[in-house]
């Protein structure tokens, strides 16, 4: 090996080639990685909606209460929905906190309210109808996050 160049670059290149030969990446690694990417992307797009609790007291003044949990894109939003005489009260809480403006759309009718610095917000007298809640950092900015639609 007298003529062999043993400078750092050559030795590291030789090491790289040696390991590539001795321990090559498995043939199915690309397919596995692409599957993982597909799955993760799907998880990210999917808004997980969970009904955490529900009490139904149809004839009472406070005619029922339920808590919905939405999880997607790294955010979790809890909505507590209470039926009151003048409509629904929706108390919300985002984690991590999205403070700024909360917007609720019920069958095309839109209302906004402030979301405080811990991500809490509340609407009163909304609904009934199909609703979505979205959160933005300012009234004129695009929503950071939005729920899928749910019934009020």
């Amino acid at each position: 090996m007298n003529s062999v160049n043993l400078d750092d670059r050559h030795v590291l290149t030789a090491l790289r080639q040696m390991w590539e030969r001795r321990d090559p990446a498995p043939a199915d690694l690309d397919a596995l990685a692409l599957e993982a990417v597909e799955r993760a992307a799907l998880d990210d797009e999917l808004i997980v909606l969970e009904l955490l609790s529900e009490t139904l007291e149809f004839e009472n003044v406070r005619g029922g209460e339920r808590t919905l949990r939405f999880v997607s894109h790294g955010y979790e939003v809890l909505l507590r929905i209470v039926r009151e005489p003048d409509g629904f009260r929706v108390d919300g809480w985002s984690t991590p906190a999205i403070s700024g403006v909360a917007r609720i759309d019920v069958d095309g009718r839109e209302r906004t309210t402030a979301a405080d610095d811990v991500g809490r917000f509340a609407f009163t007298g909304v609904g009934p109808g199909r609703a979505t809640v979205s959160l933005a950092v300012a009234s004129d900015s695009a929503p950071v996050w939005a729920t899928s639609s749910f019934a009020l």
Partner: protein
Amino acid sequence: MGAGESAEASVRPAYAVAADAFRSWLDGDRDAMTTLVHAMNPILWHVVRAYRIDETTAKDVVQETWVRFVHGYAAIDDPTAVAAWLTVTARREAWRTVKRSDRVSPSDLDTLEPRLGASPSAEDAAVTAISSAELWRSVLTLPERCQRLLRIIAFDDKPDYRRIAEETGMRIGSIGPTRSRCLDRLRAALTAGETR
């Protein structure tokens, strides 16, 4: 994929191929993900295997690296940094795995045999002319820490010394000298092998 395509990969550095693929993917070209995975997987594999993680677990770690990429790519401000981001993430995941479990086979590396079908190309031979068998024997004479460091450095174009220090328990200032010492020891072992 695998070692058989190392000659092709050597035409253009993987980090450059990865950066272009990442840009295309960000621009909406879904197929560019295949190019990105193809360019980076061999590197991620060796970075993970440098931690003596068994094959099955190493596959999981590489997949987890890609999952983290999907969740965290928005934080990569500069597309040219995508290879470094993936490499660092793979090392972090590998290190977590090592700490979390004992699913590491200490003898794994020592018993690795060359895989048939991934035979060295003429190009490989021309580039190195260092006997692969002799190199392997020489690597095995090095302390484990040297073996790991050399494997990481051999596959990481721009190693992050701070993180390597964190993961190997070495002081950051000692990585450069350790790298030189390990290479010197390897050279000495190669030279000794030559005279045997």
